[in-house]
């Protein structure tokens, strides 16, 4: 029903704006109903990092797109947490400062939701409460190995 949908949209927008500001340090983001019958019209996302005048999402940088998408996914999650959330190298386009903001937010949401992440970035490994190592001791065959955290976080740690 329309009222329920409007309410859901308002709740997601509150979360989206909150997480967008936490990740970008300011700016504005929102989902708005597009043209047409409100009962089945599509949704359009608008996002504007602080200090910028970009008109379309297309002009956002690779990292800005990833951060905006993370804010949206987290906003939807906060509304209706699934049993778990899986993020496969979402941090690849991010700079170190944004990885730290992403991790801060993740740690917050991990109180409610179970997260499984895959990453090659040392800063992200630091958010882990559990590390699972995968390797191919025998070429072509995957196996699970204990992770030596100290070696990983050392500067020349290989991930």
């Amino acid at each position, binding site marked *: 029903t329309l009222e329920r949908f409007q309410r859901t*949209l308002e709740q997601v927008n509150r979360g989206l704006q909150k997480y967008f500001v936490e990740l970008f340090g300011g700016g504005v983001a929102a989902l708005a109903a597009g043209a047409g019958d409100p009962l089945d019209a599509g949704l359009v996302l608008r996002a504007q990092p602080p200090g910028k005048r970009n008109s379309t999402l297309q002009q956002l940088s690779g990292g800005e797109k990833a951060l905006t998408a993370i804010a949206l996914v987290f906003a939807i999650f906060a509304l209706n947490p699934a049993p778990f959330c899986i993020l496969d190298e979402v941090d690849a386009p991010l700079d170190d400062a944004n990885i730290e903001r992403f991790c801060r937010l993740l740690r917050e949401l991990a109180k409610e939701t179970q997260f499984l992440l895959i990453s090659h970035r040392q800063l992200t490994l630091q958010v882990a*409460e559990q590390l699972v190592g995968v390797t191919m001791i025998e070429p072509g065959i995957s196996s699970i190995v204990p992770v030596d955290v100290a070696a990983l976080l050392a500067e020349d740690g290989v991930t």
Partner: protein
Amino acid sequence: MRLSAIHLHGFKSFRNATRIDVQRNPLVIVGPNGCGKSNIIDAIRWVLGESSARQLRGGAMADVISNGSTSRGAAQQAVVELLFDNSTGKAPAPWTASAEIRVQRRLSRDGDSQYRINDARCRRRDVGDLFLGTGLGASSYAIIEQGTIGRIIESRPEDLRAMLEEAG
């Protein structure tokens, strides 16, 4: 429901029986390029009912069955099982009272494909019903695959709406 373990045997590069215990949160999976990390995510999507081989980076569904390596022969079947801790009783009926819920899918080279919940055969729909209305359904906003995070914001308006309706 909390995911407590993942079992893989004969699924893609997991030729041997492999168990991953999920003990703490967040859990981060690490390892060199090509070692099998994203294959674990493919395994989870597969057990939960993924029916598109393309979504699992394959041509035909049989591509999920391990073809071994230069020194190991191919497997005859792929089996993946997810264990959920349901001690909070949040699972929908008829599983509300089960302390542990095991969801399994198996596929053999002769095409025999089965789903099981707590070792009892069931249909794909039954697995879907277990996760109905959570982010693990059709629009699955709960699993972000490698290389796709930037594309989420370029989704079509009707897909963004579907994501929201699933969550509402």
